[in-house]
Structure formats: C-alpha cells, structure tokens
C-alpha cells in the first residue's frame, strides 16, 4: 500500500500535466545545460554587476601590491597617521604602516580564508548531509543529533576561545571556522537529500547493485549541484563576516598579520579623528559581501528551473 499508492495514478497524472510544454520546448534546445545556465545568469543585471565587482576585487588583491613600493609590514616613521595623499594613497596608521598596502594584503588574507572555509564547509556538509539522508535509520538519527547539538552550542564563543588559544595562525582559523560552520548547511542538504533518496533513479541504482558510496557521490551530490553552488557563494559572505568579527574582537588573525577584520578593529577607535583607517577596509568588506550576495542570488535564479526572474519572459 505504502509504495503502491505513490507510484500509480498521481505520477501518471503529473507526467501528463506539468512538463508537457516545457518538454516540447526543450526537445529542440541543443544548448548544453551550462550554456543555458550562463544565459539565464547573464540576464540578471545585478548578478553581472556582482561578478564585475568581484573580479576587480580579486585583481586588486592579487596585483594591487605591485603599484606601491611599501609592504604592509613597513613602518614609515616620517609619516604617522597621515590622511590619504600622493605618497601614501590611502594614508597611514599610527604605526606608520601604509594603509593601501595593508588593505591589499588584508583583502588577500580575508579572501583566502573565506574561499577555503566555504569550500571545505560545503564538502563536509554535502558528504555528511547526503550520507545521513541516504543511509537513514540509526546513522541518520545520530548524525542529526550531533548536528542539532552543535547548532545549539554557542559556537561563536567557543570559536573565539579556541582560536585565541591556537593564537593567530590564519590556517588554524580556517580549520576552526570549518569545524564550527558546517552544521546548518549540512542540515539543509540533509533535508533536500531525503527527497532525492526517494527518487526513482536512486532506487534504480540500488536495484542495479551500485555501492552506497557511489550512489551518494554520483547520484545524490551532483543533483544537489545548484544548492551547493549557491551555498558556496553565500558561505563566502558569512565567512568574511565571521572572520572580520573574530579578528575585530582580537581572536582571529593576530598582528603582525593583517586582515580586513583587524584593520576594522584598529580603525574603529579613531573613526572620527582618522576616518580613512576605517573607511577603506570597511568599504572593501561591503563591496565583497554585496558582490557575493548578488552572485549567489543570480546563481540561485539561474539554476532554479521554476524561477521567474531567470526565465526569458520574466520581468520583475
């Protein structure tokens, strides 16, 4: 009864109802899926703006250092707390460090941390979430219990303590942020995977004798693709914010290393007397998060076949 009722009439009905038009339209689309997604993505103007900003930021982080003779560690004792000028484009801080060089390096550091944490988080979350959903039963219950436990623990506090103890190495920060950051994504992936687990093609693979690991890697995770990509981009935003927050509080990146967060912390106290110390890193954080958010939204709309904004006729 349980399986019977679901397979019989309703799906026959559904097969006839919804995709009829879409199917006949698709039959002649010889565009690959990739081209199709690209076209839908490019139709979203904000997302394209996001990509342009991001590319500029990455180029700035990678090559911005070439345009100045100062390194972020150099202290120019002849120019302490100078406003932006011809010699120091973004000014200097109390220690005589060139703010331009610092922002380039800080952006580099923040980007590296954000991207690696977000990639690692997605990997862990995808494997744990879809694994729990696929195996079900006890595995699922235990995994969910762990996830829920970690979710209610005040992770930011623990994060602060742990990273403070491990003192300042940005690579340690990546590990710590990943360990405490994968749960909510894993839970989302788990809930989506539970419906994938019931899909016919997953059951078909089981009946063919395909191994569970292969089913998860070949059938479940690829079909979460759009969800993963969107979470990846939005994950960068949250990581940048939590890294800056940690560093701002003095727990993240430690001197003499510089990240956008430490710069914000340093600049915050002098925001009225020397606003340039705060304004440049803050501006970059805003640009980075805004561009990633635009890209994330654009990707979500482009990859979601039911979205109105992405489709050809949609005007919103």
């Amino acid at each position, binding site marked *: 009864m349980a399986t019977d009722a679901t397979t019989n009439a309703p799906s*026959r009905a559904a097969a006839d109802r919804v995709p009829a038009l879409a199917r006949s339209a698709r039959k002649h689309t010889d565009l690959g899926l990739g081209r199709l997604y690209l076209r839908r993505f490019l139709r979203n103007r904000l997302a394209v703006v996001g990509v342009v900003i991001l590319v500029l930021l990455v180029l700035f982080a990678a090559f911005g250092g070439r345009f100045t003779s100062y390194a972020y560690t150099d202290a120019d004792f002849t120019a302490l707390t100078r406003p932006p000028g011809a010699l120091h484009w973004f000014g200097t801080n109390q220690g005589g460090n060139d703010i331009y060089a610092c922002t380039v390096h800080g952006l580099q550091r923040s980007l590296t941390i954000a991207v690696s944490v977000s990639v690692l988080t997605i990997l862990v979350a995808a494997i744990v979430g879809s694994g729990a959903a696929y195996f079900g039963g006890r595995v699922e219950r235990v995994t969910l219990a762990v996830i829920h436990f970690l979710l209610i623990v005040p992770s930011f506090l623990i994060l602060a303590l742990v990273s403070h103890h491990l003192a300042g190495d940005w690579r340690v920060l990546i590990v710590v942020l990943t360990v405490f950051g994968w749960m909510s994504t894993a839970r989302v992936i788990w809930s989506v995977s539970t419906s994938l687990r019931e899909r016919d093609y997953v059951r078909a693979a089981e009946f063919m004798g395909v191994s569970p690991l292969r089913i998860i890697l070949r059938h479940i995770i690829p079909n979460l693709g759009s969800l993963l990509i969107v979470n990846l981009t939005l994950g960068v935003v949250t990581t940048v914010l939590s890294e800056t927050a940690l560093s701002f509080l003095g727990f993240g990146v430690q001197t003499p290393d510089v990240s956008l967060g430490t710069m914000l912390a340093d600049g915050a106290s002098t925001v009225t007397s020397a606003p340039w110390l705060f304004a440049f890193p803050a501006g970059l954080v805003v640009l980075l998060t805004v561009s990633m958010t635009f890209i994330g939204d654009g990707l979500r709309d482009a990859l979601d076949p039911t979205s109105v904004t992405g489709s050809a006729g949609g005007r919103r």
Partner: protein
Amino acid sequence: MTLATPVLNPVPPTDAAPVLSVRDLRISFPSEAGTVEAVRGVSFDLLPGRTLGIVGESGSGKSATAMGIMGLLPPSAALRGQVLLGGRDLIGLGDQALSEVRGNSVGMVFQDPLSALTPIFSVGRLLSDALRVHQDLTKRAAWEQAVELLDLVGIPDPRNRATSFPHEFSGGMRQRVVIAMAIANKPSVLVADEPTTALDVTVQAQILDVLRLAQEETGAGLVLITHDLGVVAGHADDVAVMYAGRFVEHAGVEELFRRPTMPYTARLLAAVPTVDGGARRPLVPIGGEPPALVGLPDGCPFASRCAVALDACRSDEPELRHVTGHGHVACLRATEIADGSLDPAGDAAPVDQQATADRTEAGEVVLRVEDLVKTFPVTKGAFLKRRTGTLHAVNRVSFELRAGETLGLVGESGSGKTTTLMEILRLRRPEGGRIEIAGTDVGTVGSGARVRELRQDVQIVMQDPLGALDPRMTVFHLLAEPLRAIGRDRASIRSRVRELLALVGLDDSVSDRFPAALSGGQRQRVGIARALATEPKLLALDEPLSALDVSVQAGVINLLARLKRELGLAYLVVAHDLAVVRYISDRIAVMYLGHIIETGETETLFSDPKHPYTRALLSAIPMPDPLRERTRERVVLEGEQPNAARLPTGCVFVDRCPLYRLADDSVRRRCRTERPVPTPVAGQPGHQYACHGV
C-alpha cells in the same frame, strides 16, 4: 448493480445560441529555445447542454486551451483571439473582472482533487464560500445549499460530511466535492481538465457519471479535456482532436469514431489498446514523435509521421475545412479518406502479432513466489509511535513465472501489486513465505557476493522514464553504470553499451545526450536498455507504459515483445491498465487489497472473467467506440477500495461486491466469515478465482 447507460443523447435544437465561442485562440509562452506556440488558432462553439471533448497527447495544447479560457495562464503567456462568454470577450479582462466570471459563469474541474481543495477549510465551508463569493446569501442559507450540492454529487450523509476536511475524503469523493464547487453557482460553461486521470478506473466510471449528472442539473455546456479516447467516446457529443496546438479534426462523436478522417486520428485510434471482447486487434504504432512547438516548420505538423503525406503537405499547413458527411478536418486528402478510397494507415506495419499472441515455449521456472506476506505497522503519535494496527499490503500471494513468459499483475492503486514487486526486487528474506529466483531461495542467500550475483538476474524498468534516469548523467554513463557495478572493464563496457543501444533500436549518437534532451519513447528505451545490461533472466516492469503517450506506447510494446522472443526473458509486469496488459501478458493475476483474486491465461480471463471484481474492472475501462461504449452492460462498483489496515474477516471484496447483494443468506454468511480460496475453473487450465458467490 448492473445498468445500461442511455444511448447517445438526443441532438439538442441547433438554433440555441452558443454559451461559449472561442475564435482563433492563440497562446504562446516564452522559453529559452524561443517562443513556444502552445495553441495556434483554436475556434469552436459550445452549445448549452452539449459536451465538447478535446483529446490530444501531452504537449498538444489541450490544457493550455482550458487554462486560456479560464484566464488562469501564467502572466508570461501571450493570448490572442477571442473567448466569447455570452457575448462578452474574456481576453484582455483584468483579474478582478475575470474573478467575477470564474466560478460564476464558468466552473472548473481540475485534475488533482487534493490540490484543488484548500486543506484548512471543511468542504461545507469551501462550498458555502464559493457560493457567497458570487451570491448574496446568509451563512446559514449558503451552508444549506452546500449540503444540497454534496447530496447531489453523491456524498453519503452530506449533512455530517460537510464538516469534514478534504483529507478525510477518498480521491473519488474529493473529486465529487470539486464538481460540486464547480456547479455551485449554476455556471453556463463547465471546463473539466483531465477530471479522472488521477483516479482509479472503477472510480473514474463513477465520477464521469457524476459529471454527466452535474451537467444535466445545470444545463451547462461542458468542455471535457482528456487524453483518453475511451472517455471521449462515452461522454462527448462533439470531439476535437488536437495536434501541435491546433484542432486537426472536429466532428460529431459518432462520425469521428466511425470514420476518423485526419490520418493522425485514424492512427491514434489504431494505436490504442482495447479490452473489446473477441480477439485482440493488432496495434499500429505511429512512427516518430510529436513535434516541438518551437519554430514549427511550414506545412502540416503531422506530415513527417504520416503514411499518406503528399509533397504539398510539407509546404503548406492545411486549414480546418468542412468535409461532407463528416465534421471539419485539417488534411489535404480528407475527402479521399472520408469516402473510403484511401487508407490513412498506408502500409504501416502492425504490432508483431506473432510475437505478442504466440506463447513462446515456456522454459524453466525463473521466479516462484509462495505465500508472500508483507505488512506495514500503522503507528500513531509523532514521538512514541505507538503501533495501533497492521496494514496487510500483501497477503499470501503465490505465483510462478517461467522463462519466455509474461505475467501481468493488475490492480488499482493500493492493491499491493507494487509492494509485491518491490519485495521480490529487494532480494531479502520476505516477512512471510518464500521467494525463489532461478532456483535460489532468496531467504537462504547470506553472503553479499551471492546477492550481487542474483541482482544480475533480476532487473527493473520503472514507470516514469524521466524520473528513473539521473538527469545529470549522459545516456552512455547511465547504461555503463550497472556494468561498472558488476566490475566490467572499460573496453567491454564501451562495446556492451553500443550493443544495448542497437538492441533497443536507438542510434549511437544518443549516447552523449542527457535524458532531458530525449523524447518520452527514447527515454523508456534507455530505461529498458539499462535493465538489460547485465543480461538478466527476469525483468520487472513497473507500469512500463503508463507515462507514455498512446502514439508511442505501441512502439514500446513491440520492442518488449521482440526482446522477450530474442533473449528468452521472463517479464513480471505491474500495471493498473488491463487494456495495455492484455497486449503484453501471457497470464494475468488480478489483485485486490493484497490478495490475488483471479488468475488465468490472458485471453481466457478477458473472454470469461469469473470474479465479480475482474468483471467490474473490465467493464469500467472506457472503450474508444461510442456505440459499444454507450450500449454495453456495465458493472459500476460502488465505493472505493477500503484501507488495508482493516481487512474484513471474510472475503476482502465483500463491501463492494455486486454479487453479494444478490446472494442468498447462506452464501452471504460465508462471504462475511470465510476468506475464499482460489478454486480452479473446470476445462480452463491455470484459470483460478477466489469467490463464494459465482
């Protein structure tokens, strides 16, 4: 309860003004590939009290037409033409103005009754709201009227049931409520979009009767949209056949079925499997696939599939013209076909009769199922999950299947047929009974390696080919997967995939395509090829044809027959549709509530059904022939299949059994208390049924 449906409705006076006139309706949707022209110039008049059946395959634009009339299309759709309702053009009206019309002058019956009813309101509330939107009624009066409406559509004990919520009703009862809502404000036009597609066949007959009653009660004109030619034959006065967004034939129901004049209609009728008594008619598949509605080429859209197409057919699209003695037909050769001088089928080959009818020499036993039992616990509560009962999904089911043989397991949803299939495919010790595959008892197979070996012998073809194929894998990888799972090396996989594609009649070039880029028929072929990859002995087919359009179905039936003959396979087919099963099975087992109630050779079962349920099932399937459909004796079952959690102690069919009602007391007592065991029919080897009353 046996009754004969009345003969064709008398023709109403022709001078009545049409309640609905559609003029040159055109609907298009934007898509990535270009503009999809879903409807390309549809015109018709609907007279009061008449029924217009619109038939077509998926993607033909029939549902878009219905939604266009109701103004329920998504905002991206572009509409042109006229929809005149009582002289008022509905196209271009705002949503506010349309809402005045919808539910008031036009009633709509949707396909899925569950999603058509708001779950948080009682049905009485839903109905009285529907009334009060358009009429100035007090709450009390509206409620009274709602109760009357429920009574009209055949809801038992309407006064109490009005306070129930939609989820407390069964599928058929829900559809009755939807019909009641549609007729609440006495509309002049009813639009029913596939009203019975989501329902079981014995319930479908009831709902179609209710729809007819509702129409008589309101005198409305009915637009009945369906893919089922049998439903149209039984219930429409006029029929319009849609193909690629246009009417290609529009005629009275008798003329259309007597002499289908557009080649497409003729071929469609020849491709529909039927349950008529007597010998089974050969099926003739239509080659090719319906065209995509993007950038249609000039000329008749059917020309590429038509056996009698002329050169002119490929350059100009024929208009819908009147043909003497017939209706309107869009075909250049309509007059030739109408006067009988041209056979629209041309020289298209029928389905390989030899292969389907001839029983191949039955080989060794491939599958033996003895007393299979499967139950599910019925639990209550979210946390503690108290067990409150047992759902008997499969109850002591036994059958045998030999190489080269096809067994059809037939039943309505909830009969346990799919559960039986899944129990066999699981390859684990069943809850009760024995399953033996190729001589091996699956209960005794302990090691994983042995199970994997057994897996190769049993494979499955699933119902929905799109769902069963991973959308992110190419055809090559899909076919390679089962081979990789059994550890074949790269080179042998490549050659085997090529072999498999050839076996199911697909071109090599599809191997790097994704399933979404294939047509429905091609997808099902890929599904079959994948199942054959490991050279199984037993192929389980779970509703292999129900997701396919009629014109494609016949081709797949052909393929299955050829494969069985060439490879000596055994098929276990699960299906709800007796007509389709008839064309592929050697033997049929009919299931009801987890029990096999009758089993026998296919032709014996069709010519001499014994069990009252089998008879009802056979007579409930609509036949695509208006005269026979409307004059034959029908056994209309009351009610619906009950919940398998509360099985009666006696015969499981007793609550709906027409024989039980006529039987005398001693038989009745046996039906109530004693579960009938299968008894053989004298003179018909292999034919068994379980009934006290026959």
